[in-house]
């Protein structure tokens, strides 16, 4: 049998695993299984996940691996000291799991989980016209953002394909200056920074800094997240509403706090200086002890976001997918705005023939993985799974998928091909999990 990827502290070729692909192909292909793909965290549209001739791929990957140094977050030493299983994700050495995916998942749903998400890209824009630059690039309106506001947005290419999904925050520095922070996917950071260049040239007065390496990002998520942070954050931060952010201080060190997350739970995301990361992380773990806090790796981060039906770039989103297909029309403000991709998006917003993103609950215990084909009851191919996992909260296999509009109706029965076996499933309302609303 082949075991999930793991690595010890010394970066070695064992990061990468071979796996005989047993998907629906009658002819076996050797698939180079990137550990992050193994854990369902990277998409097949990326170079990492593509199925290529094994021999050639081995050479390419070996060269790639030897010639590139993996990036580390400022918390790497903590993860290693606390028994995390590490694997490469978006060129970072990241914790995949500590106690186990289900244990970490449940801790986040019932108490509180802490995540090192320092691999996420953090891009800062200063200057009086920073809002106009971002308004030109983001599908969501930026020029009307108030200080302290956070918005989910997409960045599209001219054709309306999705380059990334991002959070943009309008912040005020301690010296009273407004600036914007754009949090991008780690796998897309280099692409987005490159994409920005010509636009930055059009706005010479906007100062741009990639502050990813200089900072760390920590998420605290779960029903006890707010309480956990009471002794750690100033009162003015603790009263922030959902999707609000503030530059404040934590133990007299600068800290950006936002009431956001990627788990379906209430909670915080903190950005601190890289040199403060270990101290902040330790203080969170200490304060969380009485609540049963657990460190959570990328494995459970993926099952949590899937239950909450949050899209993941490389799975539900890529450059061939447009926002309407993805069910993210709310993140496109088309009225009275011109931005990169807006013309194409006006057309796409009217197209009712495109495939739609839906949620499936499957019979049995086996999960459908990305790429599994979906058939209607007459055995016609009607779509494909984009993300799938066993859901710890529902105790059932769940999946997100793109299916033809004719079948994209809640209650429709569909068959999913799981490595050659057709498994019954039904389309359900998304999200799979919604947190109980506090009174």
């Amino acid at each position: 049998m082949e075991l999930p990827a793991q690595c010890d502290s010394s970066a070695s070729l064992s990061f990468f695993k071979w796996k005989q692909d047993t998907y629906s192909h009658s002819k076996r292909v050797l698939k180079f299984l990137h550990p992050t793909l193994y854990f369902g965290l990277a998409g097949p549209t990326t170079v990492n996940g593509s199925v290529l001739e094994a021999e050639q791929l081995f050479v390419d990957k070996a060269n790639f691996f030897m010639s590139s140094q993996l990036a580390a977050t400022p918390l790497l030493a903590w993860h290693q000291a606390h028994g995390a299983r590490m694997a490469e994700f978006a060129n970072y050495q990241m914790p995949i799991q500590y106690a186990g995916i289900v244990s970490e998942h449940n801790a986040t749903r019932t108490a509180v989980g802490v995540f090192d998400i320092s691999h996420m890209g953090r891009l800062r824009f200063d200057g009086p016209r920073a809002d106009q630059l971002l308004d030109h690039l983001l599908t969501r309106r930026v020029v009307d953002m108030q200080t302290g506001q956070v918005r989910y947005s997409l960045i599209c290419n001219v054709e309306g394909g999705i380059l990334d999904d991002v959070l943009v925050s309008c912040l005020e520095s301690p010296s009273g200056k407004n600036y914007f922070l754009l949090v991008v996917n780690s796998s897309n950071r280099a692409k987005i920074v490159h994409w920005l260049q010509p636009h930055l040239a059009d706005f010479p007065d906007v100062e741009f800094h990639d502050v990813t390496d200089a900072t760390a990002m920590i998420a605290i998520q779960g029903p006890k997240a707010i309480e956990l942070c009471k002794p750690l954050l100033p009162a003015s931060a603790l009263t922030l509403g959902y999707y609000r952010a503030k530059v404040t201080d934590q133990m007299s060190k600068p800290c950006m706090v936002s009431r956001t997350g990627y788990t379906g739970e209430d909670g915080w995301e903190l950005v601190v200086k890289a040199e403060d990361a270990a101290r902040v992380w330790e203080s969170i773990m200490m304060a969380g002890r009485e609540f049963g806090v657990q460190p959570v790796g990328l494995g459970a981060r993926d099952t949590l976001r899937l239950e909450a039906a949050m899209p993941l770039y490389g799975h539900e989103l890529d450059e061939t997918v447009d926002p309407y297909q993805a069910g993210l029309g709310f993140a496109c403000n088309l009225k009275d705005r011109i931005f990169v991709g807006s013309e194409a998006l006006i057309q796409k917003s009217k197209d009712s023939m495109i495939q739609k993103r839906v949620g499936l609950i499957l019979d049995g215990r086996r999960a459908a993985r990305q790429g599994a084909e979906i058939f209607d009851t007459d055995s016609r191919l009607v779509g494909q799974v984009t993300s799938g996992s066993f859901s710890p909260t529902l105790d059932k296999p769940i999946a997100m998928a793109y299916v033809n509009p004719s079948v994209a109706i809640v209650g429709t029965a569909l068959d999913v091909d799981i490595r050659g076996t057709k498994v019954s499933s039904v389309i359900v309302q998304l999200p799979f999990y919604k947190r109980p609303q506090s009174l």
Partner: protein
Amino acid sequence: MSITPEKLKYCNSHEWAYVADVSTGIATIGISAFAVEELTDLVFMALPKVGQTVTAGGEFGEVESVKAVSPMYSPVSGTVVDIHSALVDKLETLTVDPYNEGWIIKVKMSDPTELDRLLDWETYKKQCSH
């Protein structure tokens, strides 16, 4: 009689084989405690059918955890004579007792000399510690 890991023969790929009585030519097959620990959070196991033939190094089933699917390879060639179908509904047994209650299939061996090519406990243990 309790089977302890020292009495078993192992594949590099973490399956074990045990022959209780050489005269029967039947090998019991399972997966190691190390493998179970590495997989974590098991949710599903697919077993072969009784009567199916298996080959040494060939896939006889698969085990699935929350985030990963792992094929299981047979340590020996032969015919499946018994499957532990009750295990599928209580995979947690594998965490508690992978070598007795956690057995997976029994195979009537076509070539018992294949057992000699498997690893002994000491060698297997060393491999896992790398």
